[in-house]
């Protein structure tokens, strides 16, 4: 076999791995790699406008498709720009493989031009990282990177490539499989634990299913639906879990947590048996930990042992992949013809229906000013609930989660763990690459959209038409809401005294811009925009600047201590809550 350069090897690896898109940005240390990319057409390189955008785009591509997202950036500033994206993916367990250029091996540690300690900087926000010091290890390292990123609890893996490695030659061989003696994620759940869990689940009087992003990441949606319907139990989902179980089904009682529905949070608080699946008891979900599910016995299914009993001590832990464990549970229930306590269940549902009557997502409609919730509801109608929705971070994100009913997994894409403003637009672009024939909309705010605006140019270059739903309230709304509630309306640095003309801005990038100021125009504008299949349309909705997200559990509150719209004018928080975020 002819020896080939490291750069050629890398590109061959990507081909052999079946990589379709590589999101990246060139620079000195990766020039050899870009030269090889130039010579072929199998791996399509997408030239973004900022490395953070590259990582978010790869991330959005991965969340939409289930495939790994792949990134290439140069050393130094290329890497530091990418870090926010990598940390975003890490917090939500998204499989990415990020290739970074590095100064030549001989210069490492010399403060060379565009040198940063990439492996050191990224170590806390990757699942694993590698520095390739020998070209003969390159192909195997790439294989390991994909393997580690995609298996177990997924996550970003970074491969740092010194420039000399990319021109050194060796023979190419891409291993079909790799084995790591130090890494063997458990997939199959323990049969004894599963059996015990089934008994506990079926003996419940007030059961509750609480599921998270792990169900989506493990493609466990079908098993979740089957188990939930077999049991007839109520189900709530985290912000990251939405779509795994259809939101339009009657057993779904809404999202839980800080901005969850009244019925979901009350049911959590009152349940006697909690079945947590692929969820990690995040503080946005639990509220104050010692007030969390005070009467519940807890079963927890998760692929990551360190997620189990981290925040909340559980009674029956099951380590394994969600579809695998749920399938085993379903089999036990069916084989032994086990039945839940229907009498207790009827009573429990009666109680939940009482809570539902609170209509905690009700908001006061207006014919004068556009309510942000109304825009999301209309978007849901116009897209017939079928669009892939990405979002940024803030109030608009919560309204998107609350009012767009997601019926399938991978339809809802947002930065839940890190809460990265700027995520939405590049993620929408990535999702559009994955599904060019589907409608993709990015629900954003006037703050967030300005953090990754430059990607509008990338979207023009590659013609990835996305509808941008800007809920423009003129404020950093979510922060303003906290200031209104907890800082006596001292609106410190949350009002934008200058905003761009978004319509002209969209046009400047070659897209269509629309400004919508009246409630009566919302639906028409949306229809018009979605009719333009091949255009990116920036819809700038001028919304009620004083609107708040309800329900809300103030930091430090228990799940049953929600503030509701129109009902809680006087908002206070617990003293200890003020130190929480």
């Amino acid at each position: 076999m002819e020896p080939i350069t490291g750069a050629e090897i890398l590109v061959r690896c990507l081909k052999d791995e079946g990589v379709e898109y590589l999101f990246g940005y060139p620079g000195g240390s990766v020039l050899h790699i870009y030269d090889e990319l130039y010579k072929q057409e199998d791996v399509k390189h997408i030239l973004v406008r900022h490395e953070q955008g590259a990582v978010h785009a790869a991330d959005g591509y991965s969340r939409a498709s289930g495939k790994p997202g792949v990134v290439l950036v140069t050393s130094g500033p290329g890497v530091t720009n990418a870090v926010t994206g990598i940390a975003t993916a890490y917090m939500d367990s998204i499989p990415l493989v990020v290739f970074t250029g590095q100064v030549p091996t001989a210069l490492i540690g010399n403060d060379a031009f565009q040198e940063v300690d990439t492996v050191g900087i990224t170590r806390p926000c990757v699942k694993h990282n590698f520095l390739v010091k020998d070209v003969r290890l390159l192909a195997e390292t790439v294989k390991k990177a994909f393997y580690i990123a995609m298996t177990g609890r997924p996550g970003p893996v970074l491969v740092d490539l010194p420039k000399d490695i990319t021109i050194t030659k060796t023979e190419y061989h891409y291993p079909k499989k790799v084995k790591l003696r130090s890494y063997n994620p458990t997939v199959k759940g323990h049969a004894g634990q599963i059996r015990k869990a089934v008994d506990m689940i079926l003996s419940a009087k007030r059961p509750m299913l609480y599921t998270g992003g792990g169900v989506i990441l493990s493609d466990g949606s079908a098993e979740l639906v089957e188990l939930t319907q077999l049991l007839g139990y109520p189900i709530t989902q985290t912000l990251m879990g939405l779509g795994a179980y259809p939101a339009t089904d009657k057993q779904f009682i809404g999202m839980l947590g800080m901005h969850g529905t009244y019925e979901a949070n009350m049911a959590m608080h009152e349940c006697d048996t909690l079945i947590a699946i692929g969820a990690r008891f995040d503080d946005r979900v639990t509220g104050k930990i010692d007030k969390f599910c005070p009467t519940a016995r807890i079963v927890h299914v998760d692929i990551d042992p360190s997620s189990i009993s981290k925040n909340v001590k559980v009674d029956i832990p099951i380590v394994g992949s969600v579809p695998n464990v749920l399938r085993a549970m379903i089999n036990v229930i069916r084989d032994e013809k086990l039945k839940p306590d229907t009498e207790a269940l009827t009573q429990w549902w009666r109680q939940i229906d009482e809570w539902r009557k609170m209509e905690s997502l009700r908001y006061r409609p207006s014919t004068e000013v556009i309510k942000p919730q109304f825009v999301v509801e209309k978007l849901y109608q116009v897209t017939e609930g079928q669009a892939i929705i990405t979002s940024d971070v803030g109030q608009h994100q919560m309204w998107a989660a609350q009012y767009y009913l997601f019926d399938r997994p991978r339809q809802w894409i947002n930065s839940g763990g890190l809460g990265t403003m700027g995520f939405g637009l590049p993620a929408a672009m990535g999702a559009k690459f994955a599904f060019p024939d589907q409608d993709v909309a990015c629900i954003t705010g006037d703050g967030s959209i300005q953090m990754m605006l430059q990607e509008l140019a990338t979207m023009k270059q590659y013609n990835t038409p996305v509808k941008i739903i800007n809920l423009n309230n003129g404020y950093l709304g979510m922060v303003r809401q906290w200031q209104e509630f907890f800082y006596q309306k001292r609106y410190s640095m949350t009002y934008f005294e200058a905003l761009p003309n978004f319509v002209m801005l969209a046009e400047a990038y070659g897209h269509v811009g629309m400004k919508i100021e009246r409630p009566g125009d919302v639906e028409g504008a949306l229809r018009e925009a979605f009719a333009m299949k091949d255009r990116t349309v920036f819809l700038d909705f001028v919304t009620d600047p004083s609107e708040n997200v309800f329900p809300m559990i103030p930091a430090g509150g228990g799940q049953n201590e929600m503030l509701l719209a129109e009902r809680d004018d006087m908002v206070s928080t617990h003293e200890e809550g003020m130190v929480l975020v």
Partner: protein
Amino acid sequence: MNNSNRHVISILMENESGALSRVANLFSARGYNIESLTVAPTDDPTLSRLTLVTSGNEQVIEQIVKQLNKLIDVVKLIDLSETDSIERELMLIKTKALGEQRAEMMRLSEIFGGHILDVTDSTYTIELTGPGGKLDSFLRAVEKDAILEVVRSGATGIALGQKALHV
């Protein structure tokens, strides 16, 4: 529940350049205590053995063990405090040795099973091994202002009986 116990955790990990910093990073990032940390290659040059001493309540230790296991470079680990095991630490101590001190210091070293490695007309350098607690007692027994320098290796340990940590 809240009582904080000392644990000796012994880890076999890939002998890779970044491996040690991954462990150190984990402890600082998650706010875990680290009392001591020793690391050296094993008979198999691809593996390092790392011993760390930490403390925390049951729940914290459980998390530490899980988080360590989650590191890709960690091959295997054992919490030595959960089994019959022995723990050893090496201490080198330089003391003043003047007049009456000379006999006194020599006697103390003998009682604790130490070796005097180096003698000058005014100092001794003593080597002592044992469990951390024994080294502490020795330090307490020596009068404070006689101590010139103390170097401790940090604890290492091994399980007793047939139990062995290997791949």
